[in-house]
Structure formats: C-alpha cells, structure tokens
C-alpha cells in the first residue's frame, strides 16, 4: 500500500511539469501586452514600459521565460505579480477561502445529495421519488448565476431588510455563516447529480441477488440497506465526489464573484486577464496537485469499501 502511494506520487511529477509548461504556453500565447494591460485605457510612458518589460524578462523568448520560471520554482520561488506581490502570498490567502468554500460545498453535496438519493431510492416509484427527481432536474437546469443572485437577494437582502440577519449578503467576515449560502449555490448542480446517482445506484444494488439473500436471511431492513446495499452503492458516489472536489475548487469563479469571496477562482480570472503567467501557473499547479491527491484518496477508499480491491 505504501509503495503504491509513493508510486502514484512519483507519477504526479511529469503531470505537474507538463501542466505548468502547457499553462505557461497558453498564457504566453494570449494576445495583448501584459504591461499595457496594467494601465487600462491609458498609455504608459514608453520608457517605463521598456524598463518593466526588461524587469519581468518579457523580451525573452518563450522557453527562456519558462526556464526562469521553472528554476525559480525549484528554489521554492513562485514568482511575483506585475505589481510585485509574491505569488505565494496571494495563493496562501486565496486558497484558504476557496478550500473553505469547496469544503462547505462538498459536505452539503455529501449530506444532502446522498440523503435525498437514499430517501428517493427507498421510495422508488412513489410520489416523493418523482418529486425529488423533478426538483433535481430544476436544480441542474438553472444556471449558478441565477440561483446565486436569487438566493442572495431573497435570503441575504430581503431577510435582512425584514430584520432577520441569517445569511450575510457577501464577504467572509462572518466565519462559517458566510460560506453556507455560497456553498449551497456552488454545490447546487452537484447535489442534484449526486441525488440521482445515489438513487439509481442504490435502486440497482437493491435488486441484486445478495440483497435478496440478506433479506431472506431475515436481516432488519436498516441493516440490509445500510450495511449491504449502501456500501456497494457508495463506490460510484465516492468517484463522483473525488472528481468533483477538483471541479469545485477550479469552478468557483461565478460563486465567488456573486458572494464576493476573495478566492482562487476570482484570482485565476483576473490573472489570466492580466496575463500574469506566474500567478496562473502557480494556481493551476496547486489545483492539479489537489486533483491528483483527491484521486489518490478516492482510489484508496475503494479498497476500504470493497475488500476485493487490493493495492499490493
């Protein structure tokens, strides 16, 4: 098992290198001069532009620039923005917010998604089941932008105006409370998918022969569902959750913008816009790393759930 983990981690190195090179090249290929973008609609003094281009190695060919970046990376230096702020400083603060947000979303997904799916599966074909299916369909089809602003307006603004201060409208000043609404919005579609996945997976498992055996043995229903059916049905769910963590981390741009959370999604957006290679590559590298780790954890969980799966 230990050797397996180490091997997986070593495999991550070429992936990371490839990802940085690719992202660096993509940002490099974006049109527009990053220094000119700094000044907005104005034109910077040409002299200053030259000095800045020199300072940030922008006159060098692509591979030289990448080499500067890579050697810095090996020294633990992630580089700096064009405003001189170290990328590590930026990432430290922003990742904290996004991890909080994605964490809240993941918990909501797991609890609400699996809970609803379980409920629907056990009432398979009944009215409650159809109702849940319809509700999830709505959740999937309405874009985040709409649910986000709607919930913000209803539960943030209108409630506060009515004197009930339940959810903050924006920002992270209120601790966990700040993340509840954005967390739900971010998790929205995933909750729906997970509900449907849980329902289908469980319904199918409940039809399996070994479940019939368990029921025939006279085991209590709760034990049949919990111990025998759910455990097997969990495998696709864990896969989904693991892959979704990466999506949640990277895809938080809209939610972060609506709820004004200073997270990584926002940062990535502005940095791509400003063509700040070091920031974009730094963030993507960490995201890739999180993705790789999440996948590793998922694979290890398989072995826990299904004893037939063994990693030497």
């Amino acid at each position, binding site marked *: 098992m230990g050797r397996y983990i180490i091997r997986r981690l070593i495999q991550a190195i070429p992936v990371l290198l490839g990802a940085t090179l690719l992202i660096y090249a993509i940002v490099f290929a*974006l*049109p*527009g001069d*990053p220094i*000119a*973008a*700094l*000044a907005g*609609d*104005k*034109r910077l*003094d*040409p*002299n*200053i532009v030259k*000095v800045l281009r*020199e300072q940030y190695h922008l006159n060098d060919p692509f591979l030289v620039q990448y080499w500067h970046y890579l050697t810095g990376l090996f020294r633990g230096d992630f580089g700096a923005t064009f*405003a*001189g*702020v170290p990328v590590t*400083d930026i990432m430290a*603060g922003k990742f*904290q917010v996004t*991890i*909080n*947000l994605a*964490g*809240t979303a*993941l*918990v909501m997904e*797991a609890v609400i998604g699996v809970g609803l799916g379980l409920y629907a599966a056990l009432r398979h074909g009944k009215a409650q089941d159809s109702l849940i299916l319809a509700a999830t369909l709505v959740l999937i089809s309405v874009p985040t932008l709409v649910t986000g602003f709607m919930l*913000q307006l209803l539960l*943030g*603004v209108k409630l*506060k*105006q009515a004197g009930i*201060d339940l959810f*903050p*409208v*924006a*920002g992270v*000043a*209120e*601790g*966990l*409370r*700040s993340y509840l609404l954005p967390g739900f919005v971010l998790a929205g579609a995933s909750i729906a998918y997970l509900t449907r996945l849980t329902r289908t997976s469980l319904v199918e498992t409940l039809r399996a022969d070994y479940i019939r055996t368990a029921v025939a043995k006279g085991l209590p229903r709760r034990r049949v569902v*919990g*111990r025998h059916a*759910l455990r097997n049905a969990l495998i696709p769910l864990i896969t989904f*959750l693991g892959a979704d963590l990466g999506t949640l981390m990277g895809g938080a741009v809209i939610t972060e*913008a*609506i709820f*004004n959370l*200073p997270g990584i999604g926002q*940062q990535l957006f502005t940095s791509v*816009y400003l063509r700040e290679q070091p920031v974009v590559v730094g963030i993507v590298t960490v995201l890739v790393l999180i993705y790789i780790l999440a996948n590793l954890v998922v694979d290890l*969980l398989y072995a*826990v*759930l299904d004893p037939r799966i063994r990693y030497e």
Partner: protein
Amino acid sequence: MRFTKGARIAAGTALLALGLAACGSGASTGGGTASADLPVRMELGEPQKLFYPGDTSESEGAEVLAAVFAPLVDYDENKQVVNEAAESIETTDNKVWTIKLKPGYTWQDDGSAVTAQNYVDAWNYAANQDNAQSSNGFFNRIEGWADLNPGEGQTVSTKEMKGLKVVDDNTFQVTLTQPFSQFKTMLGYTAFYPLPSSAFGDDGKITETYAKQPIGQGLFKFDKPYNKGTDQTIDLTLYGKFPGKKPNFDKLQFKMYTSPETAFNDLAAGNVDVDDSLPPSAISRAKSEFGERYIDQADATIAYIGFPLQYNKTYANIKVREAISLAIDRKTIAETVFSGTRAPADDFINPLLDGYRQGACAVCTYDPARAKTEYTEANGPKTLELGYNADGPHKEWIEAVANNLRANLGVQVSVKPFEKFASILDELDQKTYGGMFRMGWAIDYPSAENYLTPVFSTVAIKTGSNYAGWSNKEFDDLLAKGDSAPTQAEGLKFYQQADDILIKELPYIPVYYYRINAAFSQNVKGVKINLLNQVEWSEVEKTV
C-alpha cells in the same frame, strides 16, 4: 447505535471538510447592533497594487490614498482650484513655480512636520525610470526629467531633477521646461503627494512595509498593514493631528467587491454605506429605493470612436467622418443601451469642467438625412469596420452604432470584437488594424487641457493616447499658447480654439460622457463626490 462503515467514512469526510471550513474564519463580527463604533463603510474594487503613490494610477488605489493624504490643491464646488496643503502656489511666467506649504501638516507615524524636502524626494523618486512608477510621465514637464529617463539600458546618472529646489523647510521651487498655465491644477493628483523619509529603505527604494501601510499627512491613517490578496477590508482611523476640517466619525472602512451587483445588494441590506459604482442593472431599483440618497452626476470620462487616420486613407475625407458622426443616435444609446448612466456627448471637453460649451460639436447631433447626403457626396466607403474590446461593457453600444450606420448611411458595417483593450492598442501601434475603434479618456487632473494634449497633440502620437495619429500644427500652437497664457481663464480661450479645430477635423468622434451613479445608506449624510471621483470625507456625517 451502530454506525455502518460506509456511514463512518461519510461522516469522517464531512467532519474533515467542516473543520477546513471552520478554520480561517477569523473574528466573526456580530449582527451589527453596536452602531456607535460601526465604521462608515465604502464599496471599493481591489486596488491593483500596494500603495506606492507614484505608482497608483487606477481609481481604486487612488480613492484609498486620497483618504490618507492631503493634496497640495483641491477643487471647490465651482470647479476652481483651491489650496489645500499648499499655503500658496505662485508664478510670474508659468515656468517657475514657488510652492509654500501650509504649516500644521504632520506625518501620521511620528507626528513630525511635513517639509518641502518630503515633496522633492517623492517627486524625484516617481520621475526616475529605475523605479518604474506608472505616473512617471506626469513629471515630464519639469526641468531635468530627461536626465532621470535616458531610456532602456541606459544608466540614470543623477537622482534629482534640476528643476526641483528646496528653498526652506516650507518652500520649494519647481522649474518647468516650457510654461504651463495648468500646472497648479495638476497638483491635486496622487502622483504629487509627498513621502515621509521613513518610506524609503536603505537602498533608496520605497519599502514594501510602507506600501502595505502607507503613512500620509491626511485625514485618516491605516490601522494595520494591508495584505493584498487576503484582506477584504482596509480599515482607517481619523488622524487626530490633522489640521484641516474633520468629519464627525472616527472609523472609515473600505470593503472590497469584485461584482458591482453584489456591492449594491450589500448596500441595500445595510452592510455598506457608500457605493459609487452602481451597475446599470441596479439604476431603476436604486432610484426608487434610495430616493434622496441616490446620486447621479457628471463624470469627467468621455467615450469616442476613433479613426486610424495615420495609415488608412479610407477615412481621410473629413466629410466622411462628419457623416458618420451625424448618423449616430447618441441620445438613444445613452438612455436605452446604458439606462441613463451615460449622457450624449456634444463637445470634446466634458461638461463637468470649465471650458465645456453645450452643443459645441454641431455634427454630434443626430441628423440621418444630412448624414446620408454628405456621405454620398463624399463618396464614402461601401463597407465600414468597427472594433471594440470585449472585456468591457461595449458590445451593446458598438452594435447600436453599427446599426445606426447601416440604416442611415446604407453601408455594410462589420463589428470586430478584440479580446481586450490592449490588443486593439497593439494592432493600432503596429498599423495592422484599419477599421474604426472605440476609445475612452478619463482625465488625470480637472483641466480642459487634459482632454486635448494627451489625446490629440502631435507629441501624443508617440507618448500619449493619440491613436488616430492625427497631427495639426495650428492645434499644437494653440495648446502652447494656452499653456503659456498668464491666467487660467485666458488659457482656456486658447484651449477652446483648439477644441474648435478638433470639432472641425474629427480625428475621433465623441459619443457619450460617463456619469457617476452612487447611493448611500441611512447611516450617513452629506456624501459628495468631487471632480476626481472621490468622496469628500470631511463633508460626510454619520447619522446614527
């Protein structure tokens, strides 16, 4: 109760995630009942950089610095320049300026007096190319600027401009290379703030410590260093030893937002007190919900459509440019496309400033019949191209202009989106884009001159924003006359004559003026926004 293994795993993951979510939450403020110590809170976009006054050329950072620093001059309700930190600013020839400081201004860290040397140091620093400060160009009228800017790869041999001389502790003298009657007006800009000696490190550069917690001589001081990227607020406290007019509240907080819609929602919920960038989508709601507390006033920014005259002969005929201008329905664009957050333009000088003449640009009125006749007579091109940058709110109005041109001139118009503004500028610089393009200009200092020299003078082709590449000797001469005129008022006459040439020649056509749409909560009153688009904090009162 016995948990199944699966449930335990699920619960474990949940707890782990909850733990992650809980950490880093910081101090949670309560429901906001303690209104007495509640700061006045203002909406802000994230400043682009840390606070180096000479390198802060965007509005968000400037808004913060304006609360921390007192400028040499300010602008009163009649748009006139008045002294603020300056006791007097005098000149006899518009070339040599003597600036005397008002006593009583002190640095917020150690309470020591602000000296003339502090100004000279700050200006020399900003003007030195080695420091790559974005406001470097503001000093190019001062004698000796060229020595500090020898060009790329060249070493800067001196650290001082010879045009700056300290006379005594409270007085310094500025010598310009050419007379410039508007120099005094410039001095309200961020780049001209002084710097305390503690701002500079051993290497002579401004330290990062200073840039995180700038020390000024103005109304408010920073409570703690600002960590860019992490902090969502900038907290300030009234500086007790500030000699000027003080407001009736102690705490000022800037709250940073990325979405104007979100900021407006927070304003509606009472979590923000001042919001000066309402989104067009919120205007009708703001009007009805805020009533008296809704502000709609002119903003000094202009939007144009430009012609690449330098290298494309298609638009060489003035009649063609006139016809295009006449064919644009500015009023409908301002009122419908922008929900009234813009106003139709009728002069190259914005109505916010002295020198604006209503209706000066006769061909800026909508006259489709005349447009058609002129265009046909001038034998205008059968196809037109219109470029804009897709990263700003431009698509709708550019499409509207294109429709106007199609309908009124009977030509084919293609609209070309660019990823961002910088890509348009790149192509114009390299002379590869031949179509018309959108352009905008926000002033640096409130003078009519600022709409002319940086955008349309011959020098501005190389160093300014003259992307039309238009050059006119008479226009340049009139600017020089205005610059050396003995009084501001006389200078203005020449600037208006220069403006007349623009109206006749139309290197760009003005389309609309921006407007400031702001609103404030019931917690404050007396919110005023000045010519630099900044809130006048000394006028603001807290009502609870």
